[in-house]
């Protein structure tokens, strides 16, 4: 039986390797640019993450542009959120309130001064995350490197974490999913939220999708980095400019900071 | 390996033969023996329809036992219900394609297995702890419990600790239908499990396990309470009449 299986289709084989991103045969070179970039530069992590780093974002609302939503689109693409489709028969407005969103654009007006600010909101990666405290199964957890995420193998879909999150950062998958990305599995009945592009973290990439997109748009409103490393750009910037956490009163020590609100 | 496989092939053909012929013989014997008098334990249903309902309650809920002894009922029911689930789950080894309800029952079968062990444990404990039950227990009563517990534990160990090759097992049993011998994985736990199962099959028609068919033939439970309306006469009693 084995022998039969050995009869492989030679023509297919090399290109299949290309997807693996291991070998760079002739075909692979042709296919390469789009596909391989990401994979080749990746050095998959082989040791457990440690608390030596703490990932965070700094958002300079002054640079964030009204009308721009590049970061949102990028996140949707990166994490396959745009693969969600409205179930047939669901009114669009209701669907809006039900589909998952990891990052959203918010426009604020100060009641006193009338000043308008726009900023992106995502999971704030709290140091003392209420969502983790309340989760009955421990599915909601904080990785050693500060990323707060949901282990969807444990999540029972109780939505208590959503009740607890002060930032409405979490979404529940209300419908069946198809065509998920390999890197971002997703399925009905679990809760999820921004995980600071965790697959990028583990493959050693330098930034997140939203940061890249903002930079690509030329706004540079979001900076990603290690909050524990005093030399990292984010730490430098935080030292330079005044910033704050949203809902500071809750003392959650968020990993996402805002300046200019 | 080949020897093992052949041994088990023989064992299961033999066990199945004993089980089936033994049961058929016993059931035929029960069917053929008349119940000359109406002896339902009253209050009893007065119609056949009612008898079916009563019997269903006895078989499914162990109603009389519930009234008789709550502890025994809890453990006994746990064991039997667990056994039922386990049996349903096991049907996957014997059919291809697997029926949809059997697919659905798979995960519950595992809990059934655990419930079965707990139930059996409770039943066994009672044979030591309650003096009256200790008095009526003979070695065979203990052995059957031990046998079932061993079967259950070996099964659960296979499920949770020492996995075996389920697919090959299924191939083995499907092969038995068409005398097409497939190798049996030589995992010791599996061999133990299967050996004990064969023993169970062999003793079934010759032991108190006959209670399962017996219940259906018990006149105190399966008769309708209508002696004044319908004259009930056994064949041998009819002969007396002609004298």
């Amino acid at each position, binding site marked *: 039986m084995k022998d039969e299986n050995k009869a492989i289709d030679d023509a297919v084989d090399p290109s299949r390797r290309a997807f693996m991103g291991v070998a760079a045969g002739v075909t692979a070179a042709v296919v390469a640019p789009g*596909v391989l970039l990401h994979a080749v530069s990746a050095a998959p992590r082989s040791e457990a993450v440690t608390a030596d780093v703490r990932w965070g974002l700094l958002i300079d609302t002054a640079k964030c542009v009204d009308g721009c939503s590049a970061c949102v689109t990028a996140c949707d693409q990166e994490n396959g959120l745009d693969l969600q489709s409205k179930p047939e028969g669901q009114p669009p407005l209701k669907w809006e309130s039900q589909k998952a969103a990891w990052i959203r654009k918010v426009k604020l007006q100060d009641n006193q001064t009338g000043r308008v600010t726009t900023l992106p909101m995502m999971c704030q990666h709290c140091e003392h995350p209420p969502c983790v405290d309340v989760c009955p199964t421990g599915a909601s957890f904080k990785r050693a490197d500060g990323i707060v995420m949901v282990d969807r193998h444990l999540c029972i879909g109780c939505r208590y974490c959503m009740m607890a999150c002060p930032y409405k950062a979490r979404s529940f998958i209300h419908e069946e999913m198809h065509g998920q990305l390999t890197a971002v599995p997703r399925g009905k009945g679990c809760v999820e939220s921004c995980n600071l592009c965790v697959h990028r973290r583990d493959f050693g990439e330098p930034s997140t999708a939203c940061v890249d997109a903002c930079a690509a748009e030329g706004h540079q409103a979001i900076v990603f980095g290690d909050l524990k490393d005093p030399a990292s750009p984010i730490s430098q910037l935080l030292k330079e400019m005044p910033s704050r956490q949203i809902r500071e009163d809750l003392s959650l020590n968020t990993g996402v900071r805002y300046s200019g609100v | 390996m080949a020897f093992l496989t052949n041994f088990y092939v023989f064992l299961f053909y033999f066990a199945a033969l004993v089980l089936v012929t033994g049961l058929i013989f016993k059931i035929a014997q029960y069917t053929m023996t008349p119940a000359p008098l109406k002896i339902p334990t009253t209050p009893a249903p007065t119609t056949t329809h009612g008898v079916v309902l009563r019997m269903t309650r006895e078989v499914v809920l162990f109603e009389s036992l519930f009234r008789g002894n709550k502890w025994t009922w809890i453990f006994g029911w746990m064991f039997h219900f667990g056994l039922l689930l386990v049996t349903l789950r096991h049907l996957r080894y014997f059919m291809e394609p697997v029926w949809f309800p059997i697919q659905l029952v798979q995960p519950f079968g595992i809990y059934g297995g655990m419930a079965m062990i707990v139930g059996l444990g409770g039943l066994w404990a009672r044979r030591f702890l309650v003096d009256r039950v200790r008095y009526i227990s003979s070695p065979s009563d203990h052995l059957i419990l031990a046998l079932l517990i061993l079967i259950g534990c070996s099964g659960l160990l296979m499920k949770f600790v020492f996995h075996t090759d389920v697919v090959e097992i299924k191939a083995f049993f499907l092969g038995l239908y068409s005398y097409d011998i497939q190798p049996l994985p030589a995992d010791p736990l599996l061999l133990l499990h299967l050996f004990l199962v064969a023993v169970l099959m062999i003793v079934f028609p010759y032991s108190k396990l006959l209670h399962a068919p017996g219940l259906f033939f018990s006149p105190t439970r399966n008769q309708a309470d209508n002696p004044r309306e319908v004259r009930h006469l056994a064949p041998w009693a009819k002969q007396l009449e002609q004298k």
Partner: protein
Amino acid sequence: VQTVQAEDVKRYVVEGSRAAGLESCVEPTERMRRQHMEFIKHQRIATVHEGIRTEKYSLSGCVDCHISYDQERVPRPINDPDQFCGACHAFAAIDLNCFDCHAAVPNGARLDATAIAAHRAAGVGPLVQSRRDGEDR
């Protein structure tokens, strides 16, 4: 529904998959047949909680190696009842819900327009596009 005769239940490795051309799985086959669920379950904890991505038991690794393709070179979802995971699990009546969430075909990041054009030019268009699980087909 596929009826498997007793003699051909032995191997599930699908023709046309990369595995079909290899000697053995990431562990000896006998071991894989008994233990694969333990391996991947262990892997998933390591990956999700500790960020370890190099272990050999990655689920996406299984999919990559065991996936097969139809005539159009489009990969067939691995949990289809006639595919590697799906066939065996249907035979053994084990619910395989991993692919509720996980991609059942290799499905990498999205390509941009230029890359797609390049692939077309190279004649591997359908193959590559299909990585979106038919999304762009």
